[in-house]
Each structure stands twice: as structure tokens, then as C-alpha cells.
């Protein structure tokens, strides 16, 4: 039951992820990314990581992707390809090289990994208390550093978005 459900969700996730890179329309492509992130949350639920699943939807599917869509809609992007001519073929070539390199890396990793049964998760694993405990003890420093990084980003965005003040005569 659990394994069948996982396989179904995982297959759908891959299909949605393919939709992101293959669909020519930017809005549809972004929507496929929303579906992908939602299905990833479903995978997290199947792995008992409820907290991460909820955060995945709140932060990625619910907030960041809305901003993506917002920008795409404001710029009114349609189906045209921004890159034309020779430059386009160079970019395609580079993408192929990068993709093949990633695929080889992944294959080597999978060959070297040992797949055993993980055993069942302890009670409360992946709940709010367990995640919070590890976040505020073992990973306190990275957590705080990330929050400072985000704060800097927020301040930067506010400064950039401010109305341009007229240059004063001095």
C-alpha cells in the first residue's frame, strides 16, 4: 500500500517536473513547478516528515511560486524564445554537456549506494517538536546564519524597491 502510493506519487512528480522544462508557455511551466512542489510535499508526508511537508507547501507552493507567476504575468511573457540565432545553439550545447555530466554523476552515486531497509521511524519523527529540537540544538549556528542572510536580502530588496529620490543640489 505504502510502496504503491510512493511509486504513484513519485512517478507523477517526475512527469510534472518534465512539464516544467518541456512546456513552451512560461505560465504553464511555472504551474507545473507548483504541481511538482505539491507532490514533493506528498512524498514528505509518505516519509512521515509532516512538518517539512507543510512548510514545503507554505513556503514554496504557496508563496514563492505565486511571486514567480506574478512576475511572469506582469511582464506578460508569451511563448517566444528569448534566445535566437547562433547563441541559442551554443546555449543548447552547453545545456546538453551539463545534463549528461549530471546524469553520469547520478549514475555513479546510485551504483555506489547500498539500498537497505530503513526500518520504521520512531514515534513523533518529523513532527514539529522533533524538527524544532534538532534545528535549535545541532543546527543552531547554520539556522541563525541563514536568518541573517535572509534579513540582509530583505533589507536589500526594500532599499532597491524604494522610490528614487531626486538628486539634491549640493
Amino acid at each position, binding site marked *: 500500500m505504502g510502496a504503491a502510493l510512493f511509486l504513484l506519487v513519485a512517478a507523477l512528480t517526475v512527469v510534472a517536473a518534465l512539464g516544467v522544462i518541456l512546456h513552451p508557455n512560461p*505560465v504553464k511551466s511555472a504551474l507545473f513547478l507548483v504541481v511538482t512542489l*505539491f507532490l514533493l510535499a506528498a512524498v514528505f508526508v509518505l516519509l512521515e516528515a509532516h512538518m517539512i511537508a*507543510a512548510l514545503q*507547501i507554505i513556503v514554496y*507552493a504557496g508563496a514563492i511560486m505565486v511571486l514567480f*507567476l506574478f512576475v511572469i*504575468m506582469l511582464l506578460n511573457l508569451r511563448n517566444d524564445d528569448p534566445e535566437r540565432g547562433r547563441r541559442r545553439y551554443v546555449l543548447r550545447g552547453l545545456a546538453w554537456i551539463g545534463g549528461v555530466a549530471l546524469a553520469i554523476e547520478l549514475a555513479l552515486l546510485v551504483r555506489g549506494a547500498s539500498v537497505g531497509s530503513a526500518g520504521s521511524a520512531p514515534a513523533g519523527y518529523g513532527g*514539529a517538536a522533533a524538527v524544532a529540537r534538532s534545528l535549535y540544538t545541532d543546527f543552531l549556528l547554520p539556522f541563525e546564519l541563514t536568518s541573517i542572510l535572509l534579513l540582509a536580502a530583505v533589507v536589500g530588496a526594500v532599499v532597491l524597491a524604494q522610490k528614487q529620490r531626486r538628486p539634491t543640489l549640493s
Partner: protein
Amino acid sequence: MGLIEVGIAGAKAFAVLMLVLHMSAVLLWVERKGSALIQDRIGANRANIFGVMPVNLGLINTLVADPLKLLTKEDVVPAGADKLLHFLAPFLAVFPVMVTFAAIPFGDQLVIGGHTINLQVAGLDIGILYVLAMSSLAVYGVVLGGWASNSRWALLGAIRGSAQMISYEIAMGLALIGAVMTFGTLDMQAIARAQGHHFFGLIPAWGVFYQPLAFLVFLIAGIAETKRVPFDLPEGESELISGYFTEYSGMKQAAFMLSDFAESVVVAGLATTLFFGAWQVPLLFRDGFHLPGGAIVALPHLAVVGLQIASFTVKVFALCVFQILVRWTLPRYRYDQVMDLGWKYLLPLALANMLVTGIVIVLLG
């Protein structure tokens, strides 16, 4: 899981779905008649069944005639619209609102024939996060409805709506954090149980007494999330016709309206659960009423559970009616005022509330 458990789960889900749908329909009537009362009009009154009803009840109009009319109307898809997304958007607007109610408890435990039934569709340990996650998905119905319609008014409404909903979601989430810190759990049934004691054996210890500021911020942000007056900029009928659902007709337009009302019910349900003692009845315990002075009025189990469910329904309905009163009392904000209120007042207030709550919790040890 046996057949009986599956049946019980199904029955609970069905009951909650019906509660939200019927509450929305009754609210539509309350809104029509209530707004008429406030504005000194008669309101919806032209409905009768083949002229045989002794009195003209506006209720028939709203609950029977209106849905029939909407169901039989032509469904227009504008030229140049994205057909798939135009079709999908009303569903995306309704679905997240309906599933949000799964985490809200509408009663304590019901014991029948050896089965202990938790009166909550899904007993999630991360209940509040689930609610926030689902409500954050509600934006897509608005955004896609506006974009797929291929209309300027609709697109403007969608852009206003998405910006407004994202902004107020933050204030709403932070206000809820204050309440969560007080109760120390994200499980909504546990939060409901934690509000079961009384100050001086008389005043119920509801969340609103611990977190008045959080309640205020939550309610304002919640009303903004439902996109109703004074925050109805995404619809703004005097500027944008009807905003993101301008190009919808018939049942699809009704789906958007339904989602608005259902969102009000969800906001009321959340406020009830976190700030007004959920299904708790003042002075009512598992065995009956404990009156001040030590007297106990014993009640059978079924009566207690019935009172709890009734209490929850009445509180949710009262908060819904309050939202309608707000809607027909205040004028619409200007868009920059909406953004200012969200970012410059509610957000700092919610943050300050979190800070003070944290300090008090640390001081009380």
C-alpha cells in the same frame, strides 16, 4: 482499518463538508437580508412556489431560486482565453477552502457502542501549519482565474488579489504563532482542550483572554484574506467590474462566490478554535455543568457532545455574522492603504505580540 472506521471517517468528512456548504448558503441569505436591514431596504423578497406559499420568504429566493438560475445559465468562455486554466480556476478557488476545515475540531470525543470517535476529520499534529498551507494555495484560483480570462479587468483584479493575499498571509501566520506559543502545540484538538478550565471557576479561559492582540490581527488579516469589504480591492466592482472573476458566468462564477463565503466560515472556524474555546461550553465538563459554588448538574454523554457541537456551530455563525456586519459598515480602502495596513501596522504588531508572549512565557518559566 476496519470497515466501520472507514465509514466513521467518511461520515465525519461528509458532515463537515455539509456544515461549510450550508453555512455558506445561509450566510448568503443573512447577507442579503442583513444588508437590507442595515441600508433600510426590504431585500430579496420576490420568490414564491407557484404562488401557493402563504408568505414571501426571501430564503427560498436565495437558497433555491438563485442556485437553479446559476445552474441553468449559459457558461461563457471569452475569446482568446486559456480554456483549460479558465475551467480549472474555480475548482482551485473552492478546493483549498473546503479541505482546510478537515483540521478544525467541532467537538470532543464521542463514545458510541465501544467506538471512541474524535470529532475532527483529521487529527493532525501540525494542524495549524496544515491550515496555513491550504489557505496559501487559495491564491491560485484568483491568479489563474484572472490571467486565463484574457481580460484587462480580470488581470488587474488577479494581480491585486495575489499581492493582497500574500501580504496578509504573513501577518495572519505571525498572529497565529502568538496563540500557538501560549498553548504550546500546533494540534488544534489539543488547543481546544487547553481552553477547558475557568478563571475563578466562572470565566472560561479562552484564547482571546490570553492573546487579545493576536485575535485582533488575525481577524483583520482573515477578513483581508477573504477579499471582502473593506478589503475587496481584487473585486472592486466600481473600478474593475468584478475583478478576477469578471469573465465568469453561471456556476463557475457561483463557485468563486461560494469560495468567498466558505473562506469567511473558515476564518470564523479558526478564530473560534484558537480564541473562543472551540467547542467548549462555559462551565460544561465531561459529566455536566459545574456551577460556581460546587453544585454539579449531571448530563448524559450524548447531551454533552450535542451541546459542544452546537456551541461550536453557534460561535462560528456569530463570527460570520460579525464579518457581514463589518462588510456593510465600512467603506473600501484605497490600495496603498491596504498594503500599508498589512505591512506597516499588522506585521509589526504581530511581531511585537510574539516578542511579548515569548518574554512572558520565559518569565513564568
